[in-house]
C-alpha cells in the first residue's frame, strides 16, 4: 500500500477555463502541418520546411499559453480533463477522447515543442542539400503531433494512440533514407522491438478494463489503491514492459543503437529528448498504480539500474559518436526509470532529469551533427581529433553540454542527477539494502558516465588531429592518407539552436531547482513526498559524486588527449570487445527470441502445408487414384459389359427371392 505519500493533491476538474481550452490546438497545429506537407507533395518543396517550423513554433506558443493558464490557477486546482468527443461508446467499454492538462503534461508539452522547434530550425540547414527535406518536415510534424497526443491524453487508450503514432514517426524517420538497405532494416528493428513493448501496454489496457471498468486516468487512478496487489502488480509490470520498449531499457534496448541510422536531427529529437522519455512519462503518470504494487516498483528500479550500467559500459567502447551518445541516452534514461521506481521521492527528480537531459542531450546530438557536417558525415571518432580549433561554436556548446551531463555544478545536470543519487540512497519501506545497492549503482554509474562522455569529448575535440588536412606536411602532425577534410563551422541556422540548448544546459537546472520550484510545480501530479534521509549524508554523496566524476575525466584525459589515440581500434580486453558488440545484445535477442520464433513459424507453415493441405490434397489424390483404378472396368468390350449386366441380374433375382421368402 501507500508509503509516505499522499494522494493526488489536485482534484481533477472537468470544468475547463478558457486558456486551457486551447489544448487541442497544440495537437492540431503540427498535425495539420504534417497533413498539408504530405498531401501537397512536391509542390510544397520550396516552402514546406518553413510551414513545418511554423507549426512547431505555433504549438510552443499555445503551450506557453497553457502554462500561463495553469499558473493562474491555484496549485490544488491545476488538473483538468477536457472532454473532446465520444470515441468508443461500446457498452462496458465507453471511452471518450479527452485531454488532461496538468503540470506534468504541460511540462512535456513545453519540452517537446521547444526542443522540437529548435530542431526544426536546425534541420532547415542540416537537410538543405536533401531533396526530400519537405518529407522530413512532414514526418517531424507528425512526430510532434503524436507525442503531444501521448502526453496530453486523458486515458490510456488515447495515450496508446499517441504511443503508436510516435512509433510510426520513429520508423519513418529512422528509415528516412530508405534507399539504403541498412536504414530500412534499422527502422524495422526499432518498430518491431517497440511492438513487443506495446504488447505490455495492450495487456495492461485489458487488465484495466477487466478490473477497473475503464481506461481513463481518472477511473484507473481512483480504483488502483483499492485493487488487489496481484492486479496492480500485473498492470505495473505490463506498463513497465511498454516503457522498456519505448525508452530502450533492458531487455528491449537493442534498437536504439541502430536507430542512429536516421538523420542526426531525428536522433536528437526523438531518440534523445522526447520519444524515449515517453516510457518515463508513462511510469510517472501511472504512479497510483505503482504505489499500489511495491513489487512492480522494485522491478522498475532494477531495470533502471541495470540499464544505467549497461548503457555506460557500452558507451565506453563505441567509436561511432552517435552510437556513443545513444548509449549515453540509454544510461541516462536508466537513471530516470530508477528514480521513477523509487516512489514519490523520485518522481519529481525523474521528470526534472528528463527535462534537463532533454536540453543537454539534444544539444550534444546537434553538436555531433555539426561535427559530422564539418567532417563530411564521418562518424568515427578515431578519425576526429583536435577539432576545437576549427569549430569553435560547436566546441563551446558541446563542452557545456558535456559538463551538464557529467553533473558538474552549477550546470543543470548536477541539480537533477545528484538528487536522483540522493533519492536512491533513501531506504524505501525501511529496506536499507535497497538504498545501498541502488545508491551505489547510481553513484558508480555517474563515474562511468563521466569517463565515457569525457572520452567522447576529448577524442573529438582535443588532442592531435587524426585526419588528413591535405597539407601534405610530413611533420607527423597527422596522417596523410584518407580523404581530405576541411572541418568548418556550421551555418547560423544550425549553430543558433545549439547555442540556445547550451544556455538551457547551463542555466535551466539551477533555475528550476531554486527554491524547489520544479518539485513544487509537479506536486499536483506526483503528490507531496516526505523527505527521506539517505543512508549516507547528502553532502557526502555530493562529494563522492564529484570525486568519481573528476576521476573519470582524468582517466579519459590521460587516455585520449595525452596519449595518442590509435586510428585503428586496438584489440582491447574481453569487456571492451563485448562492449563494442553492445554486450552481445543482438546475439541474445536472436538466439532467445528470433530463432525459436522462426522455428515455430516454420513448423506451423510446414504443418499447415503438409498436414492440413496435405490431408485435402491427399484426399483428392486418393479419389483420383481410385477413379483411375475403376476406370479400367470400362474395357470397351460389349461382352464384359454383358457379363456385368448378367451378374447384376442374378444378384437382383437372388435378392428379390430372399426378400420374398
Amino acid at each position, binding site marked *: 500500500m501507500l508509503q509516505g505519500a499522499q494522494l493526488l493533491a489536485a482534484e481533477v476538474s472537468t470544468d475547463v477555463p478558457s486558456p486551457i481550452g486551447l489544448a487541442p490546438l497544440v495537437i492540431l497545429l503540427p498535425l495539420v502541418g504534417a497533413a498539408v506537407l504530405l498531401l501537397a507533395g512536391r509542390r510544397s518543396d520550396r516552402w514546406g520546411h518553413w510551414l513545418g517550423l511554423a507549426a512547431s513554433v505555433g504549438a510552443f506558443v499555445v503551450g506557453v499559453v497553457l502554462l500561463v493558464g495553469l499558473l493562474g490557477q491555484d496549485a490544488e486546482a491545476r488538473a483538468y480533463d477536457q472532454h473532446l468527443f465520444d470515441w468508443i461508446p461500446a457498452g462496458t467499454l465507453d471511452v471518450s477522447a479527452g485531454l488532461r492538462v496538468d503540470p506534468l503534461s504541460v511540462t512535456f508539452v513545453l519540452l517537446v515543442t521547444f526542443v522540437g522547434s529548435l530542431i526544426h530550425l536546425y534541420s532547415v540547414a542540416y537537410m538543405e542539400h536533401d531533396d526530400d527535406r519537405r518529407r522530413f518536415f512532414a514526418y517531424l510534424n507528425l512526430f510532434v503531433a503524436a507525442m503531444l497526443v501521448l502526453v496530453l491524453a486523458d486515458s490510456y487508450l488515447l495515450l496508446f494512440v499517441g504511443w503508436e503514432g510516435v512509433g510510426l514517426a520513429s520508423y519513418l524517420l529512422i528509415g528516412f533514407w530508405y534507399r539504403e538497405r541498412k536504414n530500412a532494416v534499422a527502422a524495422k528493428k526499432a518498430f518491431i522491438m517497440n511492438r513487443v513493448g506495446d504488447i505490455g501496454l495492450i495487456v495492461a489496457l485489458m487488465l484495466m478494463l477487466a478490473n477497473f471498468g475503464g481506461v481513463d486516468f481518472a477511473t484507473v487512478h481512483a480504483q488502483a489503491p483499492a485493487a488487489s496487489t496481484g492486479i496492480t502488480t500485473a498492470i505495473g509490470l505490463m506498463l513497465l514492459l511498454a516503457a522498456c520498449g519505448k525508452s530502450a531499457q533492458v531487455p528491449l534496448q537493442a534498437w536504439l543503437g541502430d536507430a542512429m541510422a536516421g538523420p542526426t536531427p531525428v536522433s536528437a529529437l526523438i531518440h534523445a529528448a522526447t520519444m524515449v522519455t515517453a516510457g518515463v512519462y508513462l511510469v510517472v503518470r501511472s504512479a497510483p498504480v505503482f504505489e499500489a504494487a511495491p513489487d512492480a516498483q522494485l522491478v522498475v528500479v532494477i531495470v533502471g539500474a541495470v540499464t544505467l550500467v549497461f548503457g555506460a559500459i557500452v558507451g565506453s567502447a563505441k567509436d561511432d559518436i552517435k552510437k556513443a551518445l545513444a548509449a549515453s541516452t540509454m544510461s541516462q534514461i536508466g537513471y530516470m526509470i530508477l528514480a521513477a521506481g523509487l516512489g514519490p521521492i523520485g518522481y519529481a527528480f525523474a521528470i526534472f532529469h528528463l527535462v534537463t537531459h532533454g536540453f543537454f542531450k539534444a544539444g550534444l546530438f546537434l553538436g555531433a551533427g555539426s561535427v559530422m557536417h564539418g567532417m563530411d558525415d564521418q562518424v568515427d571518432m578515431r578519425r576526429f581529433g583536435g577539432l576545437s580549433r576549427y569549430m569553435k561554436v560547436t566546441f563551446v556548446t558541446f563542452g557545456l553540454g558535456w559538463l551538464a551531463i557529467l553533473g558538474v555544478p552549477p550546470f543543470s545536470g548536477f541539480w537533477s542527477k545528484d538528487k536522483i543519487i540522493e533519492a536512491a540512497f533513501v531506504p524505501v519501506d525501511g529496506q536499507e539494502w535497497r538504498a545501498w545497492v541502488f545508491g551505489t549503482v547510481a553513484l558508480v554509474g555517474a563515474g562511468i558516465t563521466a569517463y565515457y562522455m569525457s572520452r567522447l569529448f576529448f577524442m573529438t575535440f582535443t588532442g592531435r588531429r587524426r585526419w588528413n588536412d591535405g597539407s601534405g606536411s610530413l611533420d607527423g602532425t597527422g596522417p596523410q592518407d584518407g580523404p581530405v577534410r576541411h572541418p568548418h563551422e556550421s551555418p547560423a541556422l544550425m549553430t543558433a539552436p545549439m547555442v540556445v540548448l547550451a544556455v538551457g544546459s547551463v542555466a535551466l537546472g539551477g533555475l528550476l531547482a531554486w527554491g524547489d520550484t520544479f518539485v513544487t510545480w509537479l506536486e499536483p501530479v506526483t503528490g507531496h513526498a516526505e523527505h527521506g534521509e539517505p543512508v549516507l549524508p547528502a553532502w557526502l554523496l555530493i562529494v563522492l559524486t564529484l570525486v568519481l566524476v573528476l576521476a573519470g575525466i582524468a582517466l579519459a584525459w590521460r587516455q585520449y588527449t595525452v596519449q595518442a589515440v590509435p586510428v585503428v581500434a586496438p584489440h582491447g580486453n574481453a569487456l571492451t570487445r563485448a562492449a563494442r558488440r553492445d554486450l552481445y545484445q543482438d546475439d541474445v535477442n536472436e538466439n532467445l527470441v528470433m530463432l525459436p520464433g522462426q522455428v515455430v513459424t516454420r513448423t506451423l507453415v510446414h504443418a499447415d502445408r503438409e498436414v492440413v493441405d496435405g490431408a485435402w490434397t491427399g484426399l483428392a489424390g486418393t479419389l483420383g487414384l481410385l477413379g483411375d483404378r475403376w476406370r479400367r472396368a470400362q*474395357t470397351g468390350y460389349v461382352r464384359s459389359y454383358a457379363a456385368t449386366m448378367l451378374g447384376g441380374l442374378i444378384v437382383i433375382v437372388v435378392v428379390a427371392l430372399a426378400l420374398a421368402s
Partner: protein
Amino acid sequence: MSTGEDVLFWVLAPLMVLAALGLLFARKAVHAAVCVVFVMISLAVMYIAQDAPFLGVVQIVVYTGAVMMLFLFVLMLVGVDASDSLVETIRGQRWIGVLLGLGLGAVLGGVVAQATFPPAVGLASPDEENPVTLARVLFGDYVFAMEVVGVLLVTAAVAALVLTHRRSLEPRVGQKETADAKVAALPSGGRLTPLPAPGVYARNNAMDTPALDASGRPIPESVSRILRIRGQERSATAILAAEHEVLADHEPTRHRDRRDDDAHPDRVTRTTDEEA
C-alpha cells in the same frame, strides 16, 4: 400331360439342349445357325403340343423361315468361311461367362423348382379354334399394341434399308454417258453398235468356227479369245473341206441337177480365193 407328350418332351428336350450347346460350341457360324434352326423347329413342335398350334406354325413360318434365313443370308454376305477361333481374348471372360451362365441357370431353375404351380388348366377348348381365341384377345385387348407393332415392323424395314444403303461414290453412268464413251472410243478401235446376238451370223454350232458377216468375211470376235490365242480357231476353208468330206461320204444317189453343179468345188475355191 399325357404319356405321348411326355415322350415327345423327353425326346426333344435333350436334343434341344444339345443343339443349344452346339450353338455355343460350334466353330463355324453356319453350323451354329443350323443348330438354332433345329432348336426353333423343336420349339414349334412343343408349342403345338401345348395347345398353341397357331403359335407353332407362326414359329416355323416367321422365326425359322424368315428370321433364320435372314441370318443365313447375312452369314453369306459376311463370310461363310469365316470361323471363329475359340481362344478367348478378354482376360477371365471365359470363367466369368461359364460361371454366370451356370449361376443364372441355377438361380432360375431354383426359382422355378421351388415355386408351386397350380394344376394345369390347358387351353384346348372345344368351342373355338386357337387362332380365333388369339384373334379375339389380340384385336380386343391388345389392338393398340398390335398397331404399334405394325409401325415397328415398318420402321424396322425402313431402318434396314437406311442402314445398308450404300452411297455411290462415282457419278451415275446413264445412257448419254455410255453413248458418249462409245463415240469417244471409236478412234482406238471401239465399236459403236452392240455386238450381234449369239448365233446371228453363225455358220455352225462349233465354238471354234468363226461366223461370217454380211460380206462373207469371218468375224474374229465370234470365236473365244482363248481359242484364238491358242490357235485352235478353224479357218473357213478347213470347215468347208470337212463338210464336203462328210457330205461326200454320205452323198445320196440322186440326180445331179444344176444346183449340184452350183455346188462345184470351184465355187468354194472362189470363196477360198476371196478368202485368201
